[in-house]
Protein backbone atom coordinates (compact mmCIF):
# COMPACT_ATOMS: atom_id res chain seq x y z
CA UNK A 1 0.00 0.00 0.00
CA UNK A 2 1.31 3.41 -0.90
CA UNK A 3 1.75 5.68 2.15
CA UNK A 4 -0.19 8.91 2.07
CA UNK A 5 2.26 11.71 1.48
CA UNK A 6 1.75 14.83 3.52
CA UNK A 7 0.93 17.81 1.43
CA UNK A 8 0.41 21.45 2.17
CA UNK A 9 -2.92 21.34 0.40
CA UNK A 10 -4.18 18.19 2.16
CA UNK A 11 -6.73 18.13 4.98
CA UNK A 12 -5.22 19.80 8.09
CA UNK A 13 -4.90 16.59 10.10
CA UNK A 14 -1.90 17.49 12.26
CA UNK A 15 -3.48 20.41 14.10
CA UNK A 16 -6.57 18.33 14.76
CA UNK A 17 -4.53 15.48 16.20
CA UNK A 18 -2.64 17.88 18.41
CA UNK A 19 -5.87 19.38 19.68
CA UNK A 20 -7.46 15.96 20.35
CA UNK A 21 -7.82 15.08 24.02
CA UNK A 22 -8.92 11.72 25.36
CA UNK A 23 -11.43 12.18 28.13
CA UNK A 24 -12.76 8.65 28.50
CA UNK A 25 -11.25 6.37 31.16
CA UNK A 26 -10.00 2.84 30.62
CA UNK A 27 -12.27 0.01 31.73
CA UNK A 28 -11.42 -1.66 35.07
CA UNK A 29 -8.49 -4.18 35.00
CA UNK A 30 -7.75 -3.17 31.41
CA UNK A 31 -4.04 -3.96 31.60
CA UNK A 32 -4.68 -7.35 33.21
CA UNK A 33 -7.16 -8.19 30.46
CA UNK A 34 -4.62 -7.30 27.77
CA UNK A 35 -1.99 -9.59 29.29
CA UNK A 36 -4.56 -12.33 29.68
CA UNK A 37 -5.47 -12.15 25.98
CA UNK A 38 -1.81 -12.22 25.01
CA UNK A 39 -1.28 -15.34 27.17
CA UNK A 40 -4.34 -17.00 25.62
CA UNK A 41 -3.07 -16.27 22.11
CA UNK A 42 0.33 -17.71 22.92
CA UNK A 43 -1.23 -20.84 24.39
CA UNK A 44 -3.03 -21.64 21.10
CA UNK A 45 -1.43 -24.54 19.13
CA UNK A 46 0.92 -23.24 16.45
CA UNK A 47 0.21 -24.62 12.96
CA UNK A 48 3.45 -26.35 11.85
CA UNK A 49 2.97 -25.58 8.15
CA UNK A 50 2.36 -21.93 8.79
CA UNK A 51 5.36 -21.80 11.08
CA UNK A 52 7.50 -23.53 8.43
CA UNK A 53 6.29 -21.14 5.76
CA UNK A 54 7.08 -18.10 7.90
CA UNK A 55 10.49 -19.57 8.66
CA UNK A 56 11.10 -20.13 4.94
CA UNK A 57 10.00 -16.64 3.93
CA UNK A 58 12.08 -15.06 6.68
CA UNK A 59 15.08 -17.20 5.75
CA UNK A 60 14.99 -16.10 2.11
CA UNK A 61 16.21 -12.71 3.22
CA UNK A 62 19.57 -14.27 4.11
CA UNK A 63 21.89 -15.29 1.22
CA UNK A 64 23.34 -18.23 3.18
CA UNK A 65 19.86 -19.62 3.74
CA UNK A 66 18.97 -19.15 0.06
CA UNK A 67 22.11 -21.02 -0.97
CA UNK A 68 21.38 -23.89 1.44
CA UNK A 69 17.75 -24.04 0.29
CA UNK A 70 18.77 -24.28 -3.37
CA UNK A 71 21.44 -26.89 -2.59
CA UNK A 72 19.05 -29.10 -0.63
CA UNK A 73 16.40 -28.96 -3.36
CA UNK A 74 18.97 -29.62 -6.08
CA UNK A 75 20.33 -32.65 -4.20
CA UNK A 76 16.81 -33.92 -3.50
CA UNK A 77 15.88 -33.55 -7.18
CA UNK A 78 19.01 -35.37 -8.36
CA UNK A 79 18.58 -38.18 -5.83
CA UNK A 80 14.88 -38.55 -6.62
CA UNK A 81 15.51 -38.66 -10.37
CA UNK A 82 18.25 -41.27 -9.99
CA UNK A 83 16.07 -43.39 -7.73
CA UNK A 84 13.22 -43.15 -10.25
CA UNK A 85 15.59 -44.09 -13.08
CA UNK A 86 16.84 -47.05 -11.09
CA UNK A 87 13.31 -48.32 -10.58
CA UNK A 88 12.57 -47.88 -14.27
CA UNK A 89 15.79 -49.63 -15.31
CA UNK A 90 15.01 -52.57 -13.04
CA UNK A 91 11.50 -52.83 -14.48
CA UNK A 92 12.66 -52.64 -18.11
CA UNK A 93 15.49 -55.12 -17.49
CA UNK A 94 13.09 -57.62 -15.90
CA UNK A 95 10.61 -57.19 -18.77
CA UNK A 96 13.27 -57.73 -21.45
CA UNK A 97 14.73 -60.71 -19.61
CA UNK A 98 11.27 -62.30 -19.49
CA UNK A 99 10.85 -61.49 -23.19
CA UNK A 100 14.08 -63.32 -24.00
CA UNK A 101 13.02 -66.36 -21.97
CA UNK A 102 9.68 -66.41 -23.80
CA UNK A 103 11.48 -66.18 -27.13
CA UNK A 104 13.66 -69.22 -26.46
CA UNK A 105 11.46 -71.37 -24.28
CA UNK A 106 8.21 -72.66 -25.79
CA UNK A 107 7.01 -73.78 -22.34
CA UNK A 108 7.80 -70.51 -20.65
CA UNK A 109 5.25 -69.01 -18.34
CA UNK A 110 7.57 -66.19 -17.30
CA UNK A 111 6.28 -62.75 -18.22
CA UNK A 112 2.91 -64.04 -19.34
Amino acid at each position, binding site marked *: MKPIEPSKNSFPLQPLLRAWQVNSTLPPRFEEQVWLRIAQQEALPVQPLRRFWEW*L*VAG*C*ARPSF*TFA*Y*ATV*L*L*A*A*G*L*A*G*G*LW*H*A*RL*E*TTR*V*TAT*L*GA*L*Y*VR*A*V*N*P*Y*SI*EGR
Partner: protein
Amino acid sequence: MKRAAFIIPGGVALAALAWWVSYFVGSAPTCCLLREPAPELAWLQREFKVSNHDLVRIKQLHDDYASDCAGRCRNIDAKSTVLKGLLAATNSVTPQIEGALREIALLRVECQVAMLRHFYVVSQTMPPPQAHRYLDWVTTRTLGAGHSAMMSSPLPAGNEHPAH
Protein backbone atom coordinates in the same frame (compact mmCIF):
# COMPACT_ATOMS: atom_id res chain seq x y z
CA MET B 1 8.57 -11.18 0.75
CA LYS B 2 9.29 -10.24 -2.88
CA ARG B 3 12.59 -12.09 -2.61
CA ALA B 4 10.89 -15.17 -1.15
CA ALA B 5 8.27 -15.13 -3.90
CA PHE B 6 11.09 -15.57 -6.38
CA ILE B 7 13.36 -17.90 -4.41
CA ILE B 8 10.81 -20.46 -3.14
CA PRO B 9 9.23 -21.39 -6.51
CA GLY B 10 12.67 -21.08 -8.13
CA GLY B 11 14.00 -23.76 -5.78
CA VAL B 12 11.10 -26.06 -6.54
CA ALA B 13 11.66 -25.56 -10.28
CA LEU B 14 15.35 -26.33 -9.80
CA ALA B 15 14.49 -29.57 -7.98
CA ALA B 16 12.08 -30.58 -10.77
CA LEU B 17 14.71 -29.87 -13.42
CA ALA B 18 17.34 -31.83 -11.49
CA TRP B 19 14.90 -34.74 -11.14
CA TRP B 20 14.17 -34.77 -14.87
CA VAL B 21 17.84 -34.53 -15.89
CA SER B 22 19.04 -37.30 -13.54
CA TYR B 23 16.10 -39.53 -14.49
CA PHE B 24 16.84 -38.99 -18.19
CA VAL B 25 20.54 -39.71 -17.74
CA GLY B 26 19.98 -42.66 -15.38
CA SER B 27 17.41 -44.43 -17.54
CA ALA B 28 19.01 -43.65 -20.91
CA PRO B 29 20.85 -47.00 -21.29
CA THR B 30 17.69 -49.10 -20.97
CA CYS B 31 15.03 -46.84 -22.44
CA CYS B 32 16.45 -47.17 -25.96
CA LEU B 33 16.48 -50.98 -25.78
CA LEU B 34 12.68 -51.05 -26.02
CA ARG B 35 12.82 -49.27 -29.38
CA GLU B 36 15.17 -51.86 -30.91
CA PRO B 37 13.73 -54.25 -33.54
CA ALA B 38 14.66 -57.22 -31.33
CA PRO B 39 14.63 -55.73 -27.81
CA GLU B 40 15.28 -59.08 -26.11
CA LEU B 41 18.52 -59.54 -28.05
CA ALA B 42 19.52 -55.92 -27.47
CA TRP B 43 19.00 -56.59 -23.78
CA LEU B 44 21.07 -59.80 -24.05
CA GLN B 45 23.91 -57.84 -25.63
CA ARG B 46 23.85 -55.23 -22.88
CA GLU B 47 23.34 -57.64 -19.98
CA PHE B 48 26.03 -60.14 -21.01
CA LYS B 49 28.42 -57.68 -22.67
CA VAL B 50 28.22 -59.22 -26.12
CA SER B 51 30.18 -57.43 -28.85
CA ASN B 52 28.40 -56.12 -31.95
CA HIS B 53 30.18 -58.74 -34.04
CA ASP B 54 29.04 -61.58 -31.77
CA LEU B 55 25.53 -60.20 -31.64
CA VAL B 56 25.19 -60.71 -35.39
CA ARG B 57 26.06 -64.38 -34.87
CA ILE B 58 23.68 -64.67 -31.91
CA LYS B 59 20.89 -63.17 -34.01
CA GLN B 60 21.50 -65.76 -36.69
CA LEU B 61 21.56 -68.58 -34.13
CA HIS B 62 18.41 -67.19 -32.54
CA ASP B 63 16.55 -67.06 -35.86
CA ASP B 64 17.63 -70.60 -36.80
CA TYR B 65 16.62 -71.91 -33.40
CA ALA B 66 13.24 -70.11 -33.52
CA SER B 67 12.51 -71.60 -36.94
CA ASP B 68 13.41 -75.17 -35.80
CA CYS B 69 11.48 -74.66 -32.57
CA ALA B 70 8.36 -73.62 -34.51
CA GLY B 71 8.66 -76.84 -36.53
CA ARG B 72 8.83 -78.95 -33.37
CA CYS B 73 5.87 -77.07 -31.90
CA ARG B 74 3.85 -77.90 -35.04
CA ASN B 75 4.72 -81.58 -34.60
CA ILE B 76 3.59 -81.47 -30.97
CA ASP B 77 0.35 -79.74 -31.99
CA ALA B 78 -0.32 -82.43 -34.63
CA LYS B 79 0.31 -85.22 -32.10
CA SER B 80 -1.88 -83.44 -29.56
CA THR B 81 -4.73 -83.32 -32.08
CA VAL B 82 -4.36 -87.07 -32.64
CA LEU B 83 -4.36 -87.62 -28.87
CA LYS B 84 -7.50 -85.52 -28.52
CA GLY B 85 -9.26 -87.73 -31.06
CA LEU B 86 -8.13 -90.89 -29.26
CA LEU B 87 -9.28 -89.51 -25.90
CA ALA B 88 -12.70 -88.66 -27.32
CA ALA B 89 -13.17 -92.19 -28.65
CA THR B 90 -12.66 -94.09 -25.38
CA ASN B 91 -12.97 -93.88 -21.62
CA SER B 92 -9.79 -95.80 -20.69
CA VAL B 93 -6.07 -95.64 -21.35
CA THR B 94 -5.60 -97.61 -24.53
CA PRO B 95 -2.20 -98.66 -25.97
CA GLN B 96 -2.75 -96.04 -28.70
CA ILE B 97 -3.25 -93.28 -26.12
CA GLU B 98 -0.18 -94.44 -24.24
CA GLY B 99 1.79 -94.42 -27.48
CA ALA B 100 0.60 -90.91 -28.38
CA LEU B 101 1.51 -89.62 -24.92
CA ARG B 102 4.97 -91.15 -25.25
CA GLU B 103 5.48 -89.55 -28.66
CA ILE B 104 4.42 -86.12 -27.33
CA ALA B 105 6.69 -86.53 -24.32
CA LEU B 106 9.61 -87.45 -26.60
CA LEU B 107 8.95 -84.40 -28.75
CA ARG B 108 8.92 -82.22 -25.65
CA VAL B 109 12.25 -83.71 -24.56
CA GLU B 110 13.61 -83.00 -28.04
CA CYS B 111 12.47 -79.40 -27.63
CA GLN B 112 14.25 -79.06 -24.30
CA VAL B 113 17.42 -80.71 -25.60
CA ALA B 114 17.45 -78.37 -28.61
CA MET B 115 16.88 -75.42 -26.30
CA LEU B 116 19.73 -76.41 -24.01
CA ARG B 117 21.97 -77.00 -27.03
CA HIS B 118 21.07 -73.48 -28.25
CA PHE B 119 22.01 -72.01 -24.86
CA TYR B 120 25.42 -73.66 -25.00
CA VAL B 121 26.06 -72.45 -28.53
CA VAL B 122 25.01 -68.91 -27.60
CA SER B 123 27.18 -69.00 -24.47
CA GLN B 124 30.19 -69.88 -26.60
CA THR B 125 29.97 -66.47 -28.28
CA MET B 126 30.35 -64.74 -24.89
CA PRO B 127 33.43 -64.09 -22.74
CA PRO B 128 33.81 -67.00 -20.23
CA PRO B 129 32.56 -65.26 -17.06
CA GLN B 130 29.55 -63.88 -18.93
CA ALA B 131 28.92 -67.26 -20.56
CA HIS B 132 28.77 -68.92 -17.16
CA ARG B 133 26.44 -66.21 -15.86
CA TYR B 134 24.25 -66.50 -18.95
CA LEU B 135 23.95 -70.29 -18.63
CA ASP B 136 23.16 -70.00 -14.94
CA TRP B 137 20.54 -67.31 -15.58
CA VAL B 138 18.86 -68.92 -18.57
CA THR B 139 18.77 -72.49 -17.28
CA THR B 140 17.28 -71.33 -13.99
CA ARG B 141 14.46 -69.66 -15.89
CA THR B 142 13.82 -72.39 -18.45
CA LEU B 143 14.74 -75.72 -16.91
CA GLY B 144 14.26 -74.73 -13.31
CA ALA B 145 17.85 -75.37 -12.18
CA GLY B 146 20.90 -73.17 -12.27
CA HIS B 147 23.70 -74.35 -14.49
CA SER B 148 26.15 -74.25 -11.60
CA ALA B 149 23.74 -76.26 -9.46
CA MET B 150 23.41 -78.86 -12.23
CA MET B 151 27.17 -79.06 -12.62
CA SER B 152 28.08 -79.15 -8.93
CA SER B 153 25.43 -81.44 -7.47
CA PRO B 154 25.77 -85.13 -8.34
CA LEU B 155 22.78 -86.90 -9.86
CA PRO B 156 20.71 -88.96 -7.44
CA ALA B 157 21.55 -92.66 -7.56
CA GLY B 158 19.45 -94.57 -10.05
CA ASN B 159 18.29 -91.44 -11.90
CA GLU B 160 19.81 -90.47 -15.20
CA HIS B 161 18.26 -86.96 -15.24
CA PRO B 162 17.89 -84.48 -12.45
CA ALA B 163 14.31 -83.83 -11.44
CA HIS B 164 13.09 -80.40 -12.57
